């Protein structure tokens, strides 16, 4: 019953968005929140019931459920077929179809669940803002797009959701459209995402051309059929192209630059983009395409290296930022790097698990930061906060839990997922992979440091805000703290879904996902040619050791932060700035990446009058065109003119003088019928068309 109507899940938010689009302007705020939050709650309940029904359907085998509502493009007609690369014909078919398997079940649950909490939170947060209905309409549209993306059964429909998510992020980041910085950020997000989207759509079409279908099930079956060798060139190219798409959407090097700027949107939007929806789309897509990726070890290595680099790079920037939301943004980029690191080393389940836990604590952190900002009258700079823990106790408690979780303190959620990733990075190792572990370890250290720094600067130390602001500090309303508490409970407990074997757990999460990554895991292991597992007890000891190390890193990082910030007064010193000023400058300016992009691509930088980078190259070629080529043309023109003067003279005195007027008269005679072709009467042109029609017909009838 519910499973058959799975297509309704995305339609609920779409309905809300449509209501807002058509009637929103005239509705009361209460009605707007009832409709918009209501549809998401309904979607969540519907999703839960559907998932329950799915588990009955699958009987623990993880067998996918596919529901094709109708054929969207193509109809199975022979005339719509195209030729695959190997010359066999294949159908061009993109269904409006939905796929439910363990992977999409996880996404479905946390997208609707966390999304619902964020909606509820937004009621309180946006209560005094303009454009209330617009905001909720966009949020609902966002949910619709993300659910379409998650539930799609083929790349084309996934792309619909993918683009929809991009559009909504543009709309929401630019929500305060009267602020120029918001508009610029929205444009940046949109344009950077376009680069990724180009890669994604090329990858999807490459797959269709090579494997003959857009459907995930077909593609997975084909890829796992053993028909294609590991390291197949075309598949590697396709996987890399898909990963370009994932880079754009999930903010990996070099396309991560849009995400920190996305903080220009309202805080619930940041939470939605970072935790539940947009950025996890890339991870989802790579996990969804795992069958392709395991056939392309080069692509896998690329994913792992990019992920690891992103993780440590973003974490290092996060160490010194002062804007509370910006710290969290870089933390998201860093955590996404972790996820891709996991995917890249073949531990798909571990990556997905981290997405899952991350959804909770990152949503919590963002919503908490929103609550903090709410409390201090819109101030975002942590230098102007401090000593808030007693004044907004619920926010403090929940955010503290989230910080412990993200830092990886057992037994909170982040510990299990992060350690699983680090362990997998170490284990699936030969060659460079321990280095990946090392990078991850360093990142863990930094994560603990900057998260603790955030907490201490915000909630401890001495109050550094102005008198007036301090006077107004108050705890947020129930609709905001309620979601915080729920999320805090989730962040604390979610990890127990996937307790690893070494800690006496059963790793249920990985088991649940195993059918999706069936061949994936084995093939990845085979691909990295791991010669032997450190078996049994030794194996377990090693894992324990790594765990202790990373927990130790978290504690040490947190401790450093405590030492430097716990008692921060008005003009507290930044430890990095004190010890290594150049490093601080580099980090504070985000490694000058935006500036480098400005030099290389956007064309904002000028050297004197000359624009730099790609745009500069365009301008240079424009200059070349205008000066050199046109100069040549003009020169030719000048010389022609000179020659013409000469020939006038020649004509006047020699030709006419000699008396050869014949060619002129001839030319004039020819020009009359020629001119008839173009004399401005539309019906004459129609007549020529009729003549052409006659000509064709006569030719075909009497040929």
């Amino acid at each position, binding site marked *: 019953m519910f499973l058959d109507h799975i297509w309704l899940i995305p339609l609920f938010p779409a309905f809300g968005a449509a209501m807002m689009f058509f009637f929103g302007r005239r509705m009361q705020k209460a009605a707007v929140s009832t409709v918009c939050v209501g549809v998401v709650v309904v979607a969540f309940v519907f999703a839960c019931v559907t998932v329950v029904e799915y588990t009955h359907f699958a009987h623990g085998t993880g067998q996918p459920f596919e529901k094709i509502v109708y054929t969207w493009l193509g109809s199975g007609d022979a005339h719509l077929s195209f030729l695959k690369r190997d010359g066999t014909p294949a159908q061009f078919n993109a269904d409006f179809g939905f796929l439910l398997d363990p992977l999409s079940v996880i996404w479905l649950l946390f997208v609707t669940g966390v999304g619902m909490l964020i909606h509820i939170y937004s009621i309180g947060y946006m209560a005094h803002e303009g454009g209330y209905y617009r905001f909720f309409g966009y949020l609902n549209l966002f949910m619709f797009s993300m659910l379409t993306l998650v539930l799609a059964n083929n790349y084309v429909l996934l792309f619909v959701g993918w683009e929809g998510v991009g559009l909504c992020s543009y709309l929401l980041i630019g929500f305060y459209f009267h602020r120029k910085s918001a508009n610029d950020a929205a444009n940046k997000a949109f344009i950077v995402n376009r680069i990724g989207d180009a890669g994604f759509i090329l990858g999807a079409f490459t797959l269709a051309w090579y494997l003959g279908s857009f459907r995930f099930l077909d593609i997975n079956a084909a890829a796992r059929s053993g028909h294609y060798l590991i390291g197949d060139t075309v598949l590697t190219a396709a996987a890399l192209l898909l990963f370009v798409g994932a880079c754009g959407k999930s903010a990996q090097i070099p396309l991560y630059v849009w995400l920190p700027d996305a903080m220009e949107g309202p805080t619930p939007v940041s939470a939605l983009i970072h935790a539940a929806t947009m950025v996890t789309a890339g991870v989802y897509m790579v996990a969804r395409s795992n069958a392709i990726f395991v056939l392309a070890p080069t692509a896998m290595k690329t994913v792992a290296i990019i992920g690891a680099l992103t993780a440590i790079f973003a974490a290092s920037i996060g160490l010194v930022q002062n804007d509370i939301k910006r710290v969290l943004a870089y933390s998201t980029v860093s955590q996404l790097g972790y996820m891709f690191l996991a995917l890249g080393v073949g531990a798909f389940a571990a990556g997905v698990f981290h997405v899952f836990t991350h959804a909770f604590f990152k949503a919590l952190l963002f919503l908490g930061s929103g609550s903090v900002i709410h409390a201090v009258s819109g101030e975002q700079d942590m230098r102007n906060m401090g000593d808030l823990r007693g004044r907004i106790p619920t926010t403090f408690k929940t955010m503290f839990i989230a910080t412990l979780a993200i830092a990886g303190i057992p037994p909170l959620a982040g510990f299990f997922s992060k350690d699983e990733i680090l362990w997998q990075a170490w284990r699936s190792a030969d060659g460079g992979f321990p280095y990946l572990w090392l990078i991850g370890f360093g990142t863990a250290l930094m994560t603990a440091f900057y998260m603790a720094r955030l907490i201490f600067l915000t909630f401890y130390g001495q109050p550094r805000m102005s008198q007036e602001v301090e006077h107004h500090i108050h705890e947020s309303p129930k609709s905001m703290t309620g979601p915080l508490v729920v999320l805090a409970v989730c962040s604390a407990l979610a990890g127990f879904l996937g307790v690893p074997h070494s800690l006496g757990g059963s790793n249920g999460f990985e088991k649940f996902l195993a059918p999706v990554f069936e061949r994936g895991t084995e093939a990845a292991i085979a691909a990295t040619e791991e010669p032997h597992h450190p078996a049994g007890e030794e194996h377990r000891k090693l894992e324990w050791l790594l765990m202790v190390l990373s927990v130790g890193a978290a504690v040490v990082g947190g401790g450093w932060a405590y030492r430097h910030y716990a008692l921060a007064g008005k003009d507290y010193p930044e430890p990095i700035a004190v010890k290594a000023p150049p490093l601080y400058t580099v980090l504070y300016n985000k490694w000058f990446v935006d500036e480098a992009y400005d030099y290389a691509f956007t064309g904002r930088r000028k050297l004197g009058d000359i624009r730099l980078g790609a745009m500069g190259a365009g301008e240079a070629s424009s200059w070349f065109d205008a000066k050199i080529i046109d100069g040549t043309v003009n020169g030719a023109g000048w010389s022609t003119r000179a020659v013409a003067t000469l020939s006038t003279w020649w004509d006047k005195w020699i030709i006419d003088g000699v008396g050869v007027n014949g060619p002129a008269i001839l030319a004039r005679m020819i020009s009359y019928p020629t001119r008839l072709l173009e*004399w*401005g*009467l*539309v*019906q004459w042109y*129609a*007549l020529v068309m*009729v003549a052409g029609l006659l000509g064709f017909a006569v030719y075909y009838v009497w040929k």
Partner: protein
Amino acid sequence: MAEITTLHYLVVAAALFVLGVIGVLTRRNVVIVLMSIELILNAVNLNLVAFSRMWGNLHGQVFSVFIVVDAAAEAAVGLGILIAFFRNKETINVDEIDLLKW
């Protein structure tokens, strides 16, 4: 009177088509030119439906529905252009429209 065959319909359609072509090619009034285009489209539709009957399937009829859609779009845009044009030049004679820009 003999039985009516497909050819009869084709002849009627051909007559309408030729009438429409004459209208398009010779009239000065833009509105009548547009109406003549509708005549041509109708002749085509009649052909399509007649063939649809002849082959005993519905593709022709479906296609004629598309042509009706097209005719509606064409009429709307054509008349819109006509109004814009009339506003600028105070004339609706097609042979006075001989400049690309004014």
